[in-house]
């Protein structure tokens, strides 16, 4: 992936509000990377909006996860990242996940890998290398500094800092401070930040604080729920603009 500033859009695989054609429009409006969430019933860090999206997806596919995984290829984006919980993927079989999706994505991102399975990082690295995928890591704000330094040394495509406790739920957390701390630890490794990003103003502040990329998800899904697809495209555009300014 390129090392410029990235706007990443999250959508849930199988959510029928997410049409491939809309994704295309996102890509044209400034989305650099598409983050595709594999829905799982155990949505550890997901807030209400994404949980609803997951619920829709699970209803649609009726739990046929393989089918959902295969949907990755439907989306037309230059860069794609598969986003799913390690716990779920490991249960299903890591190889199963990689073998179905790897061809179509640049990386697989496990938000719970460092939190719940830090001892299996090597496995993740090996599997990604085997399938020729880049490494990406998710960290919460409560990540140990040494761990950040360690993953930075693995030369990942980016490290994703979850700014809030759960997706889509804005809390009065001083995101800029945390971004600054993590970025200092990462050095040259790109830092993308997400969870409850919804305004250009936020993007400006986060980028100023040191973020190399921003993820937006719930804000878009919410608009889609409200039938405001057009506004969601507008949002993508405005976030991208804020990022470059």
């Amino acid at each position: 992936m390129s090392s410029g500033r990235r706007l990443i859009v999250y959508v849930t695989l199988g959510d029928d509000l997410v049409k491939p054609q809309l994704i295309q429009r996102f890509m044209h409006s400034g989305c650099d990377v598409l983050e595709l969430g594999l829905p799982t019933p155990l949505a550890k860090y997901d807030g209400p909006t994404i949980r609803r999206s997951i619920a829709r997806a699970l209803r649609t596919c009726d739990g046929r996860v393989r089918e959902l995984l295969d949907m990755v290829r439907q989306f037309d984006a230059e860069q794609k990242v598969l986003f799913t919980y390690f716990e779920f993927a490991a249960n299903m079989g890591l190889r199963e996940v990689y073998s179905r999706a790897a061809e179509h994505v640049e990386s697989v991102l496990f938000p719970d890998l460092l939190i719940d399975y830090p001892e299996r990082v090597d496995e993740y690295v090996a599997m990604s290398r085997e399938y020729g995928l880049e490494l990406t890591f998710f960290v919460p704000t409560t990540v140990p500094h040494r761990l950040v330094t360690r993953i930075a040394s693995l030369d990942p495509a980016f490290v994703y800092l979850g700014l809030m406790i759960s997706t889509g739920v804005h809390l009065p957390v001083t995101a800029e401070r945390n971004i600054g701390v993590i970025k200092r630890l990462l050095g040259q490794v790109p830092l993308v930040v997400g969870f409850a990003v919804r305004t250009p103003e936020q993007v400006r502040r986060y980028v100023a604080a040191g973020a190399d990329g921003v993820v937006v998800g719930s804000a878009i899904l919410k608009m889609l729920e409200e039938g405001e697809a057009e506004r969601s495209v507008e949002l993508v555009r405005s976030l991208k603009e804020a990022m470059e300014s």
Partner: protein
Amino acid sequence: MTGIPHRWYNVIPDLSRPLPPPRDPEELGAESRIELLPRLFPDALIDQEQTSERWVEIPTEVFDAYRTLGRPTPLVRLKRLERVLGTRARIYAKREDVNPTGSHKPNTAVAQAYYARQEGVKKLVTETGAGQWGSAVALASAVMGLRCTVFMTRSSYLTKPYRRTLMLSFGAEVVSSPSERTEIGRRFLASDPNHPGSLGIAISEGVETVLSEESTKYAVGSVMNFTILHQTVIGLEAMRQMEEEGVEPDVIIGCVGGGSNFGGIALPFIGSRLRGEGYERTRIIGVESKGAPRMTTGRYDYEFVDSAGYLPRLKMYNLGKDFLPPTIHAAGLRYHGLSPIVSLLLREHLIEARSYQQEEAFAAALKLTRVEGLLPAPETAHAVSAVLEEAERYRRTNEEGVILLCFSGHGLLDLQSYERFLPSE
């Protein structure tokens, strides 16, 4: 130079693995508890809960309040206890009992009240069982100029009139729970007009009050990261004081309810160790009651913080939110869960856990009291049990060593409990 630190220590950035974040209930459709947090707590505290920084500035006004409360608290050597135990170990106690309500609880209460007031909050609400936490919040509200309502379980309200009077003296309003004030209270009263109440009901009444009133926030006594953060004043002071004494602790001991006094004293040492800056050999022992043996028998898993399930789930050693501990005198140790930070340390074997029966605890406390003149709170008494056990180990091996005890509170308002454990002479 007053010796009070100017910053609290956040251990999270130094841990060996990330602290598992709070989680909403598992069911995809459940109401988000995480969304509720900003309505319950001051923004600054939620921010502290999630900070990536190692050090958090103590606001001047909180620093000043710490001074008034008697900080830095004394670190004292219990030479006479050493002598009667015949041990070569040196025993030090960090005396949090000098706080005006008799325990470490005001260390976080004044900080919580400060941030609340800074954000325009006019009233703090909390729950209390035996009264230690309620008194601390009442005190903190007085100090920071806030109104305060304490929901006190009816059984304590009736049997602990002095704790109640103490809160009233600080200007707080004390409400017997269940009460007519809240829907949930009325529901319980309807079912039983003499309902003894429970911490769960009191919390529910408090949360209902906070959610229904303007400019009102909840104060929480332990478990949450920010409560542990504030309590690190204990350990930061103790570390400096021990350095001044020219000693290093070989064993650090504290009792564990929600984990705040224990975390408060231990984390600065553990942090140094995790950063490779010393204390590699220091053993850290958390002591619980056999009446609520979360550390020694509990599961390490996500569970609700409060039995009412208003707050998010945290990953912690727990006995299940519906666990009903036996009525023990150390009310502060009767808790189903345990601070996620302390839980993680236990999981990582950075600390040890030990549990005692309350009979042993009171006997140990009296042993200390009768040579040192310090009367531990029933909670603290459990930690004293472990001190005696460690000292005995040093005696047997005839080794030298240094034991540091967090003397979390005094028993002056628990003399009723002591009455029952006095040896009959």
